[in-house]
Each structure stands twice: as structure tokens, then as C-alpha cells.
């Protein structure tokens, strides 16, 4: 038995911390579920690992890697528990982050609220410097003024500083200079600069991302230290790796530097788990459907992987309303999340229509049938009355469900107002939540220009399998796949993800007269950095893969589409193939292209990845149900 052969995936969720440990050699696996310890989440990790290792009868030394996802960043942002953070920006622009896009995300709601910037106005400071749109210096930084600013920052007691200058995506030098000058004067303060965190055009989105990054940096550092400490205490020398919302995994070093890329890594892991299972069973195209207590997530998997997009939103004022949150520019797995889970509450609205969610009864008081004081009917209550759930075998029999309470809640809030019997009302709730999820999944698919009917449904999460059949029926899907241990399904994703780093550089050019040499140099630079990081993490050189895309559009358009770029030295001879690749992607999305318009390229992206771990789970607890997921 070799010393280090276990890989562990750990997902810290709102209620439960889920664990999956796999023996790389045999495929044997062990599952753990323990209550999350919100005060110090690392405690639950240690406890969970301890239990699972006991099950496996293996010592902690046998752990080679622990791959981890957390909602810590999301929660720190939602609860505004980050550092006292200041913004330092170009003179005249300290309010860019508050003026935002001058937009209401709901046309008719005049009582809506907008997300609050992470740095209040009195902690937003300006430097009299200026770049032009092409990155040339219009007004240089005055070092004396920056030293004076350090005094004001110290007086204000700030713990973290985001630096975001106009057009820094074209020229990072002024941001770096100011960071270095301030850091000299302000030991112990964390800094993030926009050109490193999100080097892309559009000042509001870039500033918002940079602020969020530095706002949670200290929390993340402490937390990673604790987890590493717990591993040491267990006697493990395992490498700790962190899942990103892009679905890549990264070293602790990256997580410390770019914590904002860890937002929502749990759902990302779920999508990866689906992709992994799909590859194993010869279904590279899947609709991943992950339904938990509060939300349902749908994500298309194509060619064995989910689609990665460039922006994400956190801390939505209205949780599921697009535009009500803080924008984060970071590569993220594109999925749709709606307020439809087992705990979603049903009611009848003013037009006499049944509505389900997005508000949830959560774990406390929970659905009426939990018997913990909840009196509002939920999806779980409906599922129970319709016979989908066994009242005597919920959570494996650890929790008894109260049928009477479910009946009373459904009768009084849905059945009676609509003149429906209990079962009819339960059916209405069940079917409506299915419709909502199906509509969301379909919208997600059509946004990508895909016909969802071509995809098998891969259902997991606490409530996923219960609803899978009807959702598949509504969507017209022909196949449903439920994995072993569906309730901790997303942990598989941690173990299935390759170590990967994403890079992005802006360089504008019209395609037919592009400076290919300059672009080639950018790619070389990004790739070298990625290879360096992977080498440092122990990935052999010959197992590294590099993937390139570029953001392009028709000349004069404002939004870009992602176009694959071949992984070869770039020269003008690539013009024709690149143009053809663009046109192919474009017509897929928008039906018609516009005749006779040039193509322009703006942003160049690279992902440098290590090998994708391939493993087959051999569940020990699920004997008799087949040993494949």
C-alpha cells in the first residue's frame, strides 16, 4: 500500500459539509456528511475527514490531496463581513462604483433597492493621475501625493485597499506604482489592483470585482491557514487545492491572491460532477440538474464540459433577479440558478395563480412536514403527499415527516383558496415547480442556442431525483441519469477537476490587419506564467494542456463572442481560419450575420491546465445497484 493514495473532495454548504474520499488505486470511495460549523468551518472539515478516514480504516497520511470548495466568500459578501475596505481611484471617479450603470433592474418596481458598494463613499479616495483609452499616460502619478494619501488611509483605519484606475486594463503601471508606494507606508494592509484582478474594459464592473476581491482576502487567508492547520493536526501532509467558480482548481497561493474567483464554487463542482459522470458513461452531452433545499441549478454539459462565461453576480438584492447584484468579472461556469428547491414556499397570488418560491422555508422552520413550526406549504410537503417521499425513511430514516402538517399547510394556503382537493393542490405545486425549473433550464439552453431535447437529464442534489422525471418530460428529454450518492453529488466534481489557471489580456485589433506578433507574445507570456504555476504545483511538463479563445465581434458591435484560437505560433496566415471560426460561432447564436462588416478582436484568453483526473467510483455502500455512477 503506497503512503499517499487518497483524494478528498470537501464541499462546505450552508447546512451540511459533504465529503467524498476516493482511493486512486482501487476506486473505492467513502462518503461523509456532517453539520457545517458556521463559526469556524474548518472544524467540520476536520471532523468529517476524521470520520471518513475511520470508515476507510486508513491513516491521515494516506491523503494525497484535499480539494475544497466553500461558500465562505459568498457569505462574507452577502453578510458584509469583510475587511474595512477603501477604494483608490482616478481623480473624478470615486463614485463610478455607486453611479454604476444608472439603471433599475426592474422596470415597474419604483421601490427597489440597488446593491451597496463594498466601500462606502467616505472610504473612496482619488489620485490625480490619468491614462488615455490606448494606455498612454496623460497625467503621471505624483508619488508625494500618494504618500500623503497613505496617511489618510491609515487615519481612516482601513484594512484593505482596492486600486482601480481608468483604463488600467491597457496599462497596469500606474496601479502597480501606487500599490507599491502605499504598501510601503501601510504594512499589514491588503491590496488588490484592477489590472491584476479583472483587466477588462468597463470601469464599474472592474472596480466592483477588485473591491470584492480585496474585501474578502483576509478572511480567505485566515480560513486557508486554519484548514491547513487542521490537516496538519490530523497528521496529513496532503496538498490543499481550491475549486474556482470557473470549474478549475487552483493552489492555495491563487486562492489567497484572487479569492473572488472562489465564489459559488459548490454549484460549479456540481456541474463538473455531471460532466465527469457523463464522460464515464459515454454521455458527453448532458443537462446537469442539481436541486437542493433552496435553489435548483441547471447547466448544459457539452463535449464533456460545462460552458465558462466571463461574468457573475453576487449579493443580489433580490436573490434571483439578474442585475440586482454586484457584478464580478471572473471566469465562471455558466449555469442558471432559480429559487426552486424542496423548501420553496407555495402560495396563491392576487391573480389567482399558484406561485412557488423563490422564498424558502430553509432548514428552520423548514417545510411543514418537518414538524418544526413551519406552517407554509413547500415543495417537500407536496412531494410527501404525492407519495414521492417516504415519511418513515427521510434522510435514511433519521427524520420522521409529519403528513398531517403537510396536508394542513397545503389545504389552507393553496387548496382552499382555489377550491382544489389536497392532492390536486399538491399536484399543482409539484407540477409548477417542475415547470419553473424546466423553463429555467430551457432558457439557459436557448441562451446558448441549444435544443435541450438532445440532452439526457443528470439529476442530483437532495431533491433532484424526485423531480427529474417530470422535468425531463416537460423538456421532452428521453433519458434520466441519477448518480450513486446523489445527495452529495457535487463532491465528485472536486475530484474530477484538473488543476488549471485562467489568464486574460486585452489587445485590440481589426482581424484583417491584426498585429499577430503582439498577440503571440501575449499568449506566450500567459502560457509561461501558467506553466510556472503548474510546475510549482508538481504537474509534469508533458501533461500540461493549453487552451486559447479570443473575444471577437463585428466591427462596431459592443458585445463579443468567444472564438477558439489554435494553439500554434500566430501569424497573419491564420486570418482566414480565424474569420471562419468567428462566422461559425456567430451564426450559431444570431442566425444572420451582417454582410460586409469587418471583424475586430479585443481580448485574448488562455487556460493552462494539468491532466484531468480520471477515476471510477466503486461505492461500498451501494452494493447491488451497480458499481458505476
Amino acid at each position: 500500500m503506497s503512503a499517499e493514495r487518497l483524494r478528498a473532495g470537501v464541499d462546505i454548504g450552508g447546512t451540511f459539509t459533504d465529503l467524498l474520499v476516493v482511493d486512486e488505486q482501487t476506486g473505492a470511495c467513502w462518503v461523509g456528511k456532517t453539520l457545517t460549523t458556521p463559526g469556524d468551518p474548518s472544524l467540520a472539515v476536520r471532523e468529517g475527514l476524521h470520520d471518513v478516514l475511520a470508515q476507510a480504516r486508513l491513516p491521515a497520511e494516506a491523503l494525497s490531496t484535499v480539494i475544497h470548495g466553500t461558500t465562505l466568500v459568498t457569505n462574507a459578501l452577502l453578510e458584509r463581513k469583510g475587511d474595512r475596505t477603501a477604494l483608490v481611484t482616478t481623480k473624478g471617479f470615486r463614485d463610478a462604483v455607486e453611479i454604476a450603470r444608472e439603471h433599475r433592474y426592474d422596470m415597474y418596481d419604483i421601490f427597489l433597492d440597488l446593491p451597496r458598494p463594498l466601500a462606502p463613499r467616505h472610504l473612496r479616495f482619488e489620485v490625480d493621475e490619468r491614462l488615455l483609452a490606448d494606455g498612454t499616460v496623460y497625467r503621471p502619478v505624483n508619488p508625494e501625493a500618494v504618500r500623503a494619501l497613505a496617511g489618510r488611509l491609515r487615519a481612516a483605519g482601513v484594512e484593505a485597499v482596492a486600486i482601480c484606475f481608468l483604463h488600467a486594463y491597457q496599462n497596469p503601471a500606474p496601479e502597480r506604482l501606487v500599490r507599491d508606494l502605499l504598501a510601503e507606508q501601510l504594512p499589514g494592509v491588503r491590496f488588490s489592483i484592477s489590472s491584476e484582478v479583472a483587466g477588462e474594459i468597463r470601469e464599474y464592473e472592474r472596480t466592483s470585482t477588485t473591491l470584492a476581491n480585496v474585501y474578502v482576502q483576509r478572511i480567505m487567508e485566515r480560513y486557508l491557514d486554519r484548514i491547513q492547520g487542521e490537516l496538519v493536526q490530523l497528521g496529513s501532509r496532503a496538498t490543499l487545492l481550491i475549486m474556482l467558480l470557473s470549474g478549475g482548481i487552483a493552489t492555495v497561493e491563487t486562492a489567497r491572491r484572487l479569492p473572488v474567483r472562489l465564489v459559488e464554487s459548490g454549484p460549479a463542482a456540481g456541474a463538473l460532477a455531471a460532466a465527469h459522470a457523463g464522460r464515464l458513461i459515454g454521455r458527453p452531452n448532458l443537462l446537469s440538474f442539481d436541486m437542493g433545499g433552496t435553489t435548483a441549478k441547471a447547466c448544459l454539459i457539452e463535449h464533456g464540459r460545462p460552458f465558462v462565461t466571463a461574468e457573475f453576480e453576487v449579493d443580489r438584492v433580490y436573490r434571483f433577479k439578474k442585475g440586482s447584484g454586484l457584478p464580478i468579472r471572473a471566469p465562471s461556469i455558466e449555469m442558471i440558478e432559480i429559487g426552486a428547491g424542496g423548501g420553496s414556499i407555495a402560495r396563491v397570488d392576487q391573480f389567482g395563480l399558484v406561485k412557488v418560491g423563490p422564498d424558502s422555508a430553509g432548514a428552520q422552520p423548514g417545510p411543514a412536514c418537518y414538524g418544526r413550526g413551519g406552517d407554509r406549504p413547500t415543495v417537500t410537503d407536496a412531494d410527501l403527499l404525492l407519495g414521492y417521499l417516504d415519511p418513515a425513511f427521510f434522510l435514511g430514516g433519521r427524520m420522521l415527516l409529519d403528513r398531517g402538517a403537510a396536508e394542513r399547510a397545503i389545504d389552507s394556503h393553496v387548496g382552499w383558496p382555489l377550491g382544489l382537493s389536497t392532492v390536486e393542490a399538491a399536484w399543482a405545486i409539484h407540477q409548477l415547480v417542475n415547470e419553473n425549473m424546466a423553463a429555467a433550464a430551457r432558457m439557459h439552453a436557448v441562451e446558448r442556442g441549444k435544443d435541450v431535447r438532445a440532452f439526457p437529464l443528470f439529476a442530483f442534489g437532495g431533491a433532484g431525483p424526485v423531480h427529474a422525471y417530470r422535468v425531463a418530460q416537460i423538456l421532452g428529454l428521453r433519458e434520466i441519469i441519477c448518480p450513486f450518492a446523489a445527495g452529495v453529488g457535487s463532491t465528485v466534481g472536486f475530484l474530477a477537476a484538473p488543476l488549471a489557471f485562467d489568464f486574460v489580456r486585452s489587445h485590440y485589433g481589426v482581424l484583417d490587419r491584426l498585429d499577430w506578433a503582439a498577440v503571440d507574445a501575449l499568449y506566450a507570456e500567459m502560457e509561461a506564467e501558467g506553466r510556472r504555476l503548474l510546475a510549482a504545483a508538481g504537474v509534469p511538463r508533458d501533461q500540461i494542456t493549453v487552451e486559447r479563445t479570443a473575444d471577437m465581434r463585428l466591427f462596431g458591435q459592443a458585445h463579443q463572442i468567444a472564438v477558439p484560437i489554435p494553439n500554434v505560433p500566430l501569424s497573419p496566415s491564420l486570418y482566414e481560419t480565424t474569420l471562419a471560426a468567428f462566422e461559425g460561432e456567430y451564426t450559431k447564436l444570431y442566425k444572420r450575420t451582417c454582410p460586409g462588416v469587418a471583424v475586430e478582436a479585443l481580448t485574448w484568453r488562455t487556460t493552462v491546465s494539468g491532466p484531468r483526473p480520471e477515476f471510477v467510483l466503486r461505492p461500498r455502500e451501494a452494493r447491488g445497484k451497480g458499481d458505476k455512477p
Partner: protein
Amino acid sequence: MVKALSHIDPLTLEVFWSRLIAVVNEQAAALIRSAFSPTVAEAGDISSCAFDPRGYLIAQAVTGTPGHINSMARCIRHFLDVYAAETLAPGDVLITNDPWKTSGHFHDVTVVTPIFRDRQLVAFFGNICHLADIGGRPFSADARELYEEGLFIPITKLFAGGAPNEELFKILQANVREPEAVVGDLYAMTAANDVGGERLIEFMDEFAMESVIPLADEVIARSERAMREAIARVPDGVYRNELTMDGYDQPVTLAVAVTVRGDEMTVDYDGTSPMSGYGINVVMNYTEAYTTYGIKCALAPEVPNNEGSFRPVTITAPPGCILNCLPPAPVAARHIVGQWLPAAVHGALVQAVPDRVIAEGSLNLWNTQFNGYHADGRRFSMLFFNSGGMGARPNKDGLSSTAFPSGVHGTPAEIVEARSPLMFVKRELRTDSGGPGTYRGGPGHWLVIKGVGTDKPYRFSPFFDRTNNPARGYNGGLPGAPGAYWLQRVDVGSVGVAGQDEGSFVERPNPKATVWVEPETEIVMGLPGGGGFGDPLARDPELVRADVQNELVSRERAREDYGVVFDELLNADVAETERLRAERSTHRSS
């Protein structure tokens, strides 16, 4: 399955309805993502809708702007007057920018596509975009007649049986300043309707639906019922309001009488100023659009917007007044006046339902249109929208620098600078611009712009109002700061804080007139703040403290308007505050 929906159950209806919304959302997303003009792609100045074969609006995307949606709502009948339904064929696409039949000015072009299934007309999909250019004068309020404002495209085919109307494209390309962007956007609009139509047919196939009319009837009937219920909750009566605007060359009065009787409402603009000699006149369509929008925001934000929700409301304005202008009145800048109408209605309704309305805000978008040349001789044209503060709400502060009633976005400084030789000197919130109240109006902002990438003067067309008529507060709330606008020669005067060094080098042109600007001149715009709601002396001193700390309110105004006094360390001086507030109250009541 759904051949006769005479009795459609709530569950099925909800499913169908969600699907229809998803279809139009997809149509809108395709348009925004593939559009060329920044007004569409960055600002989202579009709308997309689905109509039943009779031309009734049934669903609209949850994006876009009310001036488009509601004025498009009843446009299909105009198209059908010209091209009878039975003459339309698959592949036909119709277009117009007739201000009186759709959205009130030439720049807003409507593209409508009849959708066929097995050669049977099943629906129309339509969308409106603000195009980058339409010929004539650059977009401005200056015209004296409609003919100066650009190319008039009467209801015409843009595509016939799938083939582009080459003659029309030729005329368009020859007349507009940015033919690539204009043609590109027309293609994007056409493609967006295709996307919507394709999804609708999939939807109908899936449910074996022969017609959307039964579904439309059900949605319309329910919306009408809900709207009537909402109106019935307003006490009967006649509620009047009057607003004064700067106008172009003379003040404009908007007079409104809102009459509520049972479950019906009439809104009459009798007493409103006559048409202007400049391009700020509003067509009746657009007047109806923003009036209905204002009513819906206040009384029934949840009710779907369609034919049914319009039925219980009757809107009238005397022909020839500025809100019901007649051809050939110039109309390019009609949004300036039209976007005040929700506030006209709210100012009347506050007498009946004070908890459902918001105080006056900045209202009309402060559009800024620039036309000129880069240093290297390339032409540029740049339009973006700027918004001042919204009025305070009865239970919370107004939003700072947020578009209302329009639904558009601002444009990033970095995008403007990357596409034009302009430089933003600052875009920052205006201290003391939010009207004091128990709840404060939203502040506006300073926007200062100059030219850096050009050595030639360029043309600047402003669309500003409220420079003489600040946003009024409600129920004791005080007005917000009025708008400010001047040109400053910074090469001679000192560079300082906007608004503080108006010396002899300041020019104050008409806030709606096109001017030529030297590159080094700074254009200084102070966007208006929103009005307050409730007595400022009743504002929580802690909120006043936060506002002072954040420099949204100065210490002087905190003392004068709110009666709150602070020490050096920004702690409220409780005794002095109480004394001052008591004194003010007594003074006021005597």
C-alpha cells in the same frame, strides 16, 4: 391539447405565460448582444414584444424602455392598415419610423415580423431600437420642422419573402452618417424577431396549440381584471397636478386631471402648453405610453403590461398641445417632455395614495450627443444617456443617478473614451443635490467632459431640463438641486471643483441647443437631484450623520435643512439639534 382554452386552468396559464416571457426575453437578449449602436448594446435602448395575430400586445421582454413598449403596443394596427394580414407572406419584414404611428421620433425604428406556421399567420414579433443616425440634423432638439430631423420611413417592407428591400437599404445608406451601424442594427433587429418567432412555433408545436388567441384572451382578461381591481382601490375623485418645465425657448406647463370612478380612470391633459416651435413636441402615442407607465408603477407594478392593462384607462390631450402634437411639428427630443408624465400623474395620485408614489426626480434623460472628427480625420458620433437622482420614496431615500422613468443604462466612461476623442474629467455625485426630506431625494452627479483626441471643434447637442425648475418634494419634502450646465474655458481659468469657479470664462448656452465646442473647453453638467419625501426635520439624525460623513450632505445644509448639528468628530449634538428642530417647527407653524 389546448384547442379551446375557454376555460384555462391557472396552472396551465402560468406555464404558458412563463414560456411566452422566456420567448420575448430571448428575442431581446439576441438584439442587445448583436447590436452595433452603443445606445442599444450599452444603454439597452430597445424593446421587444409579441403580439397575437389581431395585433394585441401579449408579452414584452423584461428589459427596454416604457416609451418604446407602450408606444409599440398599438402599432400593429397601423401596419395592418397598410399591408392587410392576408397579403403578408413568410419572410416579410415590415419597418417604419413614423413618429405618430410608433415611438415619437425618427431615430426610433420599429421592425415587425409576421410569424407563420404552416402558412398561417400566428403572431407578430416586433422590436424598437434607437438607431445611431437617421440623417438630417444630428440628434438634437433644434429643428423647427419635422423635415429637418432626418429620413422618414413610412410603413414599408424591409424584407419581402426573405429578400432585402435593396432600394430602401440604398436610400438609407445614402442618408445616414453611420451606414454600417444602421444597417447592422436593422439586421440584428430582424434576426431578433426570427429568434422569437422560431421559439414561439416550437412552443405551439409542443402543446399542439393552433392559435395563441385563446391564450392572449385569457392573459388580457386577467390583466384587465387586475388593473381594474387596482384602480378600484384608489378613492374616487378628481386629482389635479401642474408641472412647469424649462422648455426650449419658454417654460412649458403640463396640466393633468386624473379622474377615478370605480374601476376606471381617465387622465386628461387639458390646460397643457401648446406645441413648441422646437423639437420637444410629443405625439399622442408617446404621451399614452408614459402616462400608462406612471399609473402602472404606482398602482399595479405586478400586472402584466398588455392590451388588458391599458383598457381601464382613458388618456386624452387636446390636439395641438405639446402632448398631442400635429405634423409637421419637430419631435426629435420628445423624451424630454414625455418622460415628465409619470411625475405629473404621481403628483396627482399622491393626494389619494401617498404610499404608492415617489417624489419628483430628475425625470428626463440628459442625453448628450457629440458629432465631430478624431485628430486623424475619422468621423465620430457618440450618444449616451445620463440620469440625475430619483425622487424620495415614502419609506426610503431616492436612488442616486438612476434612470426613471426611462429604463436605459448609462455608458461606461471607458467605452466612450475608446470610441471617441472625448475625455471624462469627472463623474461624481453632487453634494447637497438630493432634496431634503424625512427620506432624502437621490443625488444627481457632476459630469465634466472635454476633447483630447481631436484638435477641431465638435458639435454638442444637449437634452437638458430642470435647470430652472427643480424636482419638487412631496408631503413636506424639499426640492432637489436644479440642473446646472455651462461651458468652461479651462486654459484660461483655474482648474477647480466644478460649480465653484464660475468666472468670466464661463458660457451658459441654452441647455437644449446644439453648440460647437473647442476641444480644450470643459462641458460641465450638474444633473438634478430628486425631491424629498416628508418633513426633513423628522429625518433620523443618524441618517443625516451618514450623509454628512459621505459628503452627500454638507454640514451647513444638515443644520439649515435638517436641523441637525454635529461636533468636530461628527457626533450629533443632541441638545442643540433638539433645540434647533423645535425652533424650526414653531417658526414654521406660526
